[in-house]
Every structure is written in C-alpha cells, then in structure tokens.
C-alpha cells in the first residue's frame, strides 16, 4: 500500500511526464527529495528523465509561486528592461500548486507578474506541511537521522532513539489554521478537493498579541526579531517580493541601515510586512525558511486579519476581485486612520 504522498508524487510524475513529452510545457516546477531528513528541494524538470525525480511529502514548505516569474522570463528571448515581450505564443511552465500557492499565483496574475496562459497548474489539495521546529521540539532537540512518513504519523529516528509522532501535531501554524487548502485555479487536479475548512479561532495567535498593552506588544516584537541576521530569506522566498530593487537595497535615498542594529532590523520587518498587506496568503514560507526561528508570519497574519475585518477580503480567491490596496470605494472604512482613544483609556 502506498501512502497518500506517494500516490500524489506518482500522479505529479505522470502529469509532468505527459506535459513534457507532449511539449505542452518547456519546464515543470515541482519538488524533489532533499539530502537531509525532512528536506525537500524545489526542482525544475526539463525532460522525462528529470520528471522521474519529482516527489511529494509533508516537507514542501517553500511556495513554488516564488520561482514562476523568473522561470517564465528565462524562457523568453532576452530583451531590455522596459521592452514589451515578443509577440506570439511563448513556452509554458508546468507547476504544482496547493491552496495558498495557487492563491499567490492569482495575485501574481492580478499584478501582471505571470501570464495565466503560460502556466499549466497542477493542483494538489494541501494536507498541511510540517514545521521542522515543532518536529525538533517533539524529539527534545536531538539530531534526527531519518524520517519515515505515513499518512497520519511520522516515524522519527535518531542516534539511539525512535519515536512515532502524530503528523498533525507538528504541522505548521499557518496550515493548522488554513481554511482554503484546495487550489483555487488549476488545469489538472491530483487527488480530490477537500472543501473549505471551518476554523472559528483561526486568528487566535494574533488576538493573543492584540490583547497585550502597547508596551508589551512592542517588547514582544523587539524580542521576536532580535535574532534576525538580515539574510533576507523571508523576503527572497516570498512570491509577493519581486521589486527589481528592494527598499533595503536602495542607497539613494537609503531608507534603512544595513547592519544588525535593532532599529534597522525592526524597520525592515515592519516595512516587509506592510508590503504584503492585502496580498499575503499566509503560505508560511517566510517563517519556514527563517534560520533564526523568527515568527514573522504573525506580522502578516495581523494584516490579513485587518484586511478581512475592514474590507471583507482574502487575497487570491478570485482573479476578478481587485486587491484592496489597488482600488478604492467611497464606502471604505477610514476610522482606522486616526487611533481613537476612549475617555478613561488615556495613559
């Protein structure tokens, strides 16, 4: 009996083989097995032989939408920065997409970063991906030498220990609170759709922080980012971050200092989060790839909550509904522009 993931991997291989063989796509973007336990590597298959290496597991934590604009560009004839693309059909890319990844593709389409006609999306309803920090914690930070995945459990082995853990217990926070696990747009489907999930307290983590006083919240934020090494893995893995020159790289004017001074790190994280407002799908890639374990996903999660409460909007669900920050209506709420201090609440 093969596991759910093995079946998914098999179907992805099959679809990719067919797409590559028929020349419908020039490249197929998916995942392949990594070299250390629990690591999966984003992988571009160029031919049928490569397609055999495609795989799937609960460790596919990097949002593949991130690679799409670059991959599509790599298939276009070289041109100057502002020159329009050449006329006529351009080569296509096949790509695997879970719920959130497909929603990011919708945002990319809305923001003219990818052309829907040039991507063949292979939808995979997501069962949630594993948080390797939770996994490490579950074995008391001991070194893991192998992980064997079953449908609902993980068999973890290390030097002198072996442990079976419940898969859902170590699933990432964003996946545990995800209400849209199914791909929103797709051309092929692997498995069957599971439908939206109902999670009443899905913003609980944000509410806990909201309940703190201003000072406590600031301290929490400072503490959270204190270990940041400014490697920009969070920025670079994000499918929303595609500016030709990021504000942190600008030198005229220089918006933000470059070293590890706390004030600069804080500014980077605040501005990064705000750039994602109304666009972030909570795919959790930023948090998954952070080498220093910063929970920066909570910053964008707060903005998602605001966006939902203020504009009744969740990004990437419908290509026809414009992103809230690219449009306006006269009925938009504006009372948040000034902070209201109720009488008696002044400090």
């Amino acid at each position, binding site marked *: 009996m093969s596991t759910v993931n093995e079946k998914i991997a098999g179907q992805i291989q099959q679809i990719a083989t067919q797409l590559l063989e028929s020349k419908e796509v020039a490249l197929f973007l998916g995942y392949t097995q*990594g*070299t*250390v*336990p629990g*690591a*999966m*590597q*984003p*992988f*571009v298959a160029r031919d049928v032989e490569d397609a055999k290496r495609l795989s799937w597991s609960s460790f596919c934590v*990097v949002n593949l939408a*991130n690679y799409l604009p*670059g991959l599509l560009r790599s298939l276009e004839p070289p041109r100057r920065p502002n020159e329009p693309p050449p006329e006529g059909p351009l080569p296509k890319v096949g790509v695997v997409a879970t719920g959130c990844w497909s929603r990011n593709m919708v945002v990319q389409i809305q923001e003219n970063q990818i052309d829907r006609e040039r991507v063949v999306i292979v939808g995979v309803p997501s069962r949630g991906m594993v948080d390797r*920090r939770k996994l*490490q*914690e579950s074995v008391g*930070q001991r*070194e893991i*030498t192998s992980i064997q995945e079953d449908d609902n459990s993980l068999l973890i082995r290390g*030097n002198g220990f072996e442990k079976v853990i419940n898969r859902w217990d170590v699933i990432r926070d964003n996946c545990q609170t995800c209400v849209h696990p199914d791909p929103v747009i797709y051309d092929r489907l692997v498995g069957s759709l599971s439908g939206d999930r109902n999670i009443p307290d899905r913003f609980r983590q944000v509410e806990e922080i909201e309940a703190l006083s201003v000072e406590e919240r600031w301290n929490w934020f400072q503490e959270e980012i204190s*270990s940041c*090494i*400014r*490697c*920009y*893995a969070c*920025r*670079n*893995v994000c499918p929303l971050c595609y500016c030709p020159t990021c504000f942190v*790289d600008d030198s005229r004017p220089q918006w933000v*200092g*470059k*070293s*590890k*001074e706390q004030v600069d790190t804080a500014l980077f994280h605040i501005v990064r989060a705000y750039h994602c407002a109304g666009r972030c799908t909570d795919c959790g890639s930023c948090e*998954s*790839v952070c*080498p*220093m*374990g*910063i929970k920066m996903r909570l910053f964008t999660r707060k903005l998602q909550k605001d966006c939902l409460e203020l504009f009744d909007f969740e990004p990437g669900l419908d290509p026809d509904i414009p992103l809230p920050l690219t449009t306006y209506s006269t009925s938009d709420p504006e009372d948040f522009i000034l902070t209201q201090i109720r009488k008696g609440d002044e400090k």
Partner: protein
Amino acid sequence: MKPLAIEKTLVEDWLGDLCDDFDVFSPSMTKKGFYDWAPFQSGTGLQVPTGVPKSSIKTFFFPQPEVLFHFKASVSDPDAYRLKEPDCQERKALLFGVRPCDARSVVLNSMPYEPDPYFQARRKNTLIVGLLCKESCSTCFCKWTGGSPTGREGMDLALMELEDSYLVEPVSERGQALISSTIFRKPKEQEISLVQELYARKNGEDAASTLRGKELMALYEAPFWNQVSQSCINCGTCTFLCPTCYCFDIQDETLRGKGRRIRYWDSCMFPLFTQHASGHNPRGDKIKRVRNRFMHKFKYFPDRFGPVSCVGCGRCVRDCPVNIDIRQVLSNMLGV
C-alpha cells in the same frame, strides 16, 4: 605542554572564575529551540550540544557592524571630517566549547585578514577553548575539507569529553595560562589512552584539496551549475551562517552632524554585492552568484592561500531553505 584533567562537575566553577578576567561565551539553548552563543552564566548548568551552535564564532570576529572610525560632519565644527578611532577597550573574550571546525575557521579567515587591524585586534583579544568531537552530525563533513573532529588548529585549549571528566590539552601559551588553577589535576593513564584512541581515528581523504589541480575554466563552465542555481532563492542564510564567509560592505552613516564608517556583512548571493555604479552587474544572474560562492570556497581561495575556504561545519546544509547541499556541489566539482 602537558595535558591536565578536570572533573565535569568543576567546569562551571572554572568558567565562573574566568568571568573575572574575560567575557565568557558558551553555547546555550535559546527560546527559539536551538543552541546559539550566549554569555556564560554561573549556576544555569553548562550545555554541551553535539555539533555546532546556530551561529558561527565569526560573530565575535566580525561584529555587526564593525565601526571603523567616527567623524563629525558639520562644516562649522573645527574637527569636521577628522577621523577618530573607535573605542576598542573591550574586555577580553573567551569562547568555551568551540568545535574544531569553528576554531579552524579563524585560522583560515586570518589569511585574507592578515593586514586588517580590526580583525587582528579581536583575534588577539579572544581566547578559544575548543571542544573536540566524539560524534559527528549527519551534516558534518570536516574531514572532506582538510579538518578533523579532533583537530586543534586555532584553539588555545582543547578539551576532550570523557565519562566524568575532560582531558584538557593546552595548545597555546595563553591557553596554558588558563589552567594554572588547582581545579585541574594530573590525568589518569586511562584517560590519556582513551583520548589517544580517539585521536588515532582515521580522517579519511581530504577530498577538497584535489580541486586545486582542476582546470579553472572547466569548472567554471560545468553544466551542473544551472541545476544547482535553479532552486536557490539567493538569500544570505548560507553565507551568514558560514564561519568562513567573511565578505563585507562599507557605509558611512551620518545623523545630526555626527557620522561613523561601518563595516557590515555582505553576501555574494545578493545582486548588490557586485553592482557597479554604472548600473552594470557582472554577476547579474543567479547562476553566476551561486557559482561564485562555491568557486570562491573551493577554487579561488585555495589557489591563493592553500586550503579550501570551508571547514565542513554543515551549517549551510542544515539551514539552507531549499536544501542546496554543499557536499553534493563539491562532489559535482570533483567529478569535472
């Protein structure tokens, strides 16, 4: 210099005493669930993780940022634009529990930084108490890069963990001076023979050094770079966690008439690293940047200085967001 021994139960007392003369740092479990360098605190229990802590000890030699000098930027000031050396009267630092790979990285970094007064001052000011490795992690590969789990290069003292004690071997004069206290005793014969057994373990082949003989252009144009770079997201995780990545950028920061010139970490993974003022970028594409990282470590650096610029600590393997495994790249390079 003869080895001594110390009971495990006394190590904390010893480090506590050293705190009088040094800022002592040791690996410690962070709130985030990994080991990282932190000031040693008596009474909290000494933690000795297998393998290397999250950050390398380069954080002690290349501070973020290094202030190169101060200046005043107001024209009316008679001292305007006169450069003032930064205050460098820091206390001496002592790093406890440094693994052989990290200790060796300081020696390698010293080669390009030989004429650099800032680095050399910190090196003079920082003592390294090493901890030799009995076990390796799955991401360790020091043997491939000319190192060894029991290598003592770069250390002042080398400790080997035994059942209830550590065998302490002075490697430098200043290391010797650290163990004059009566806490240390003469090692038992059995302790010495145990350690010698560990030292005698075979090191395997120093695979990386063979790269020096490889033809530069054949490596440069090898087809595998495309596949390696394809999954890279061009972040700085590998370079910033790497103990032997030492590249920097320099900037002047001025605020309200006061200024300073700082040196801070840069990464060859970032496009800005090679961006010219003209706008031209010789490493404008991802593949060129990815290739450079490995070529620098395994070809350019050894061609110039001898050893490869990698100590096999495995941090980049452990934390690369997309699992680019330097061991695999090295194998690819060896296969050319």
